[in-house]
């Protein structure tokens, strides 16, 4: 019985251990145990062409997706793009880096030398100045090191001697390095043409899964490390890669392809169309105006008030303050303001009132002086013109405002005219003008400042009205003709917007796409 019990126990034990052995988690080596992914299928129909509508130095690759991208084995993670680089590029890179580093070193020496010399002079005169030394003396890499005056003096002497010895050597090295760089760059096209000898494939980057194009954009400066030379044979390669980057498709190569700049940007044709439309409208209406056509323009209260305001100033014997804003002479709103200033100055000259024009920019001041002077000449009052009436204040926003505020409170102009580009100071100026009791007429195209002018000024010209003001004031047929052209352009905008909206509503996007400007 005892023997049978032992046998049963042994059998149970064997059975148990065998079962346990079968249910235990076995540690499997994932690499050796994982099923080996076959490489994905390569891309097809790989093409390379010069990127359109650019200044050159760019190539666009297009391809059809790998059959394993979103289908088939679905194993593609990305596409890696390679370009063939001749080893000559490494020579160019090394030379470029040398030139740059040598220049930096020479520059650093030039700054450090007088400082080191001065620091040495100070320490020799008074070693106690070690504490306030303004030069970083080279020290050993030891945290227990204590800097002493003697050590600092010796270190400074060594530094100065080093700079004096090596500075000229480095400086003389720059030109030969530059010449070598130029020579190496000149040899690049030939190096590219030697494909596939003396070069290697280098990765440019990856395109995401699902992509069918990639643009390799290089720098145009030959001294840049990303430089792609134009009119040079280039070769590209695309490989589909998986999660394990070592498993990748067969490489598909394309080339030779050359990059070059285009002479016409086809993506900007809509803009060209509108430019030509404007030209035609402007020239047509200007011709009509010259022939005596009656060109009606509706009244603008802000413009009509200018005459009254100038008259008021004359009666009160107080000057007119004209501000051209914070723009410089390159801004169109300032140019528009010059036109208005010319007409206002002419009326001021006729009424024999005075005008004050404080300017923010010296070039604007120069132009404003010309404008006001010729207005006085036109009015037959050239003797009344004072150059000091148009003057430069400062090129700092709030200093200008402070000065103009002071002028407003002291000179007490009867009329303030603000025409041009204004920023945060618009409210400060307008409120101070109100405090001074002036009539204020403002015109700006800055949308953020229009509310403040509307609130604080008597009359405000909003946006486009500023640009129409000179035509209103002068009433010259040529300018009125140009105003008509603007209005007809608005009609075109409204018509185009209506057609475009209807087209979008009816599912006809072609019209909207016509107006898309690329690049």
């Amino acid at each position, binding site marked *: 019985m005892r023997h049978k019990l032992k046998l049963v126990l042994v059998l149970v034990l064997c059975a148990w251990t065998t079962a346990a052995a079968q249910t235990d988690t076995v540690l499997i080596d994932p690499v050796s145990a994982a099923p080996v992914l076959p490489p994905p299928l390569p891309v097809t129909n790989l093409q390379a062409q010069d990127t359109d509508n650019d200044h050159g130095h760019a190539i666009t690759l297009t391809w059809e997706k790998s059959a394993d991208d979103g289908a088939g084995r679905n194993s593609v993670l990305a596409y890696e793009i390679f370009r063939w680089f001749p080893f000559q590029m490494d020579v160019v890179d090394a030379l470029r880096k040398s030139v740059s580093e040598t*220049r930096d070193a020479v*520059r650093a020496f*030039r*700054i450090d030398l007088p400082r080191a010399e001065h620091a040495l002079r100070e320490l020799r005169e008074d070693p106690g100045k070690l504490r306030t030394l303004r030069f970083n003396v080279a020290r050993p890499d030891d945290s227990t090191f204590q800097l002493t005056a003697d050590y600092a003096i010796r270190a400074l002497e060594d530094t100065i001697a080093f700079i004096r010895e090596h500075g000229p050597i480095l400086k003389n090295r720059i030109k030969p390095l*530059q010449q070598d760089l*130029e020579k190496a*760059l000149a040899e690049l096209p030939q190096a590219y043409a030697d494909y596939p000898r003396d070069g290697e494939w280098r990765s440019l980057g990856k395109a995401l899964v699902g992509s069918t194009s990639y643009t390799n954009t290089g720098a145009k400066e*030959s*001294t840049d490390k990303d430089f792609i030379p134009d009119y040079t044979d280039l070769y590209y390669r695309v490989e589909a890669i998986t999660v394990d980057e070592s498993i990748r498709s067969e490489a598909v190569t394309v080339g030779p392809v050359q990059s070059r700049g285009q002479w016409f940007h086809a993506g*900007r044709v809509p*803009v060209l169309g*509108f*430019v030509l439309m404007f030209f035609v409208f402007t020239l047509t209406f200007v011709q009509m105006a010259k022939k005596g056509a009656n060109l*009606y*323009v*509706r009244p*603008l209260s802000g413009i009509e008030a200018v005459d009254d305001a100038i008259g008021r100033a004359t009666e009160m014997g107080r000057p007119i303050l004209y501000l051209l804003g914070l723009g410089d*002479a*390159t*801004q*169109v709103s300032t140019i528009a303001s010059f036109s208005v200033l010319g007409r206002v100055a002419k009326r001021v000259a006729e009424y024999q009132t005075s005008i004050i024009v404080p300017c923010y920019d010296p*070039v604007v001041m*120069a132009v404003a*002086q*010309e404008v006001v002077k010729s207005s006085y000449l036109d009015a037959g009052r050239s003797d009344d013109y004072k150059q000091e009436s148009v003057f430069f*204040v*400062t*090129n*700092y926003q*709030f*200093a200008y405002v*402070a*000065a103009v*505020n002071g002028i407003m409170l002291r000179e007490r102009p009867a009329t303030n005219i603000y025409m041009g580009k204004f920023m945060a100071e618009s409210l400060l100026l307008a409120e101070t003008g109100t405090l001074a009791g002036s009539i204020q007429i403002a015109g700006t195209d800055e*949308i*953020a400042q*229009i*509310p403040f002018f*509307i609130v604080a000024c008597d009359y405000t010209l*909003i*946006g*486009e*009205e500023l640009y129409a003001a000179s035509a209103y004031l002068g009433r010259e047929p040529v300018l009125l003709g140009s*105003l*008509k052209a603007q*209005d007809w352009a*608005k009609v075109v*905008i*409204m018509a*185009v*917007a209506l057609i*475009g*909206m*209807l*087209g*979008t*509503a009816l599912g006809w996007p072609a019209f*909207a796409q016509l*107006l898309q*400007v690329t690049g």
Partner: protein
Amino acid sequence: MSRLAVVVFVLICAAFALSWAVRAGVTGGDHALREAFLVTLSAFMTLAIMSFMYRDNPYYKFAEHLFVGISAAYWMCVGFWSTIVGNLVPRISENLSEFFKVPYSGGGLDFDLFFLPYRYFYMIPIVLGILLLMRLVPKAGWLSRWPLAFIVGTFAGLNLIRYLQSDFVNQISATFVPLFVEWHGFGDFIGQLSLAADGQFVAMMTNLIIFLGVLCGLIYFFFSKEHTGWFGGASRLGIWILMITFGASFGYTVMGRISLLVGRLTFLFRDWLGIMS
């Protein structure tokens, strides 16, 4: 200067001198006097400008004139270092670049343009700049028109095309909003009619309002026709929408402006007077 003005002046000087001394004592450490002086100077400038709110006074005039002088000089110094030394010198002369210790960019990779090194062409703007200086000579002032014509002409051409693209063509494209949003028939539209913000009705109304708003705004800026009848009505609607915009813009800016004042008051009460932590 009246006696009252003199007394006020003396009192103000005494008050600021006292605040300087107290500030120096509170600050302590190295350069306490110097740092306290600088803070007191800032506070004086701040209060001098703020006194403008009361009325024009000698302290405001002083601060204003100092502001103009220092700012003009600052602009000149920065212009000298960044434009003349930083931009002009490296392009025209290697020797000058060496003198000013700036990297000579013209010598990077020199090339010839019409058989002359291209950096020689930088002499043209220098000549134009000298012509600009002729403004200071009364009889030769007309010569300055040439550089002015260059500046104005260049940027007129540049801005013409730039604003045509950004403010004209791109804006027109953006106005092509769909009138019918997620349209599956009139029945479906009625069935789903609601005022939910992300609903079809609200989206369609939004697009319609934007489109009509743009049209009416443009009609308001029409100069060639009198604003009467239906045209006047559309123009009036346009200006109303413009006024809503300007009101919204005004309201939006108020908070920002108040925070500027809070900043200055914080400086006065905390950094100068030390009565705020």
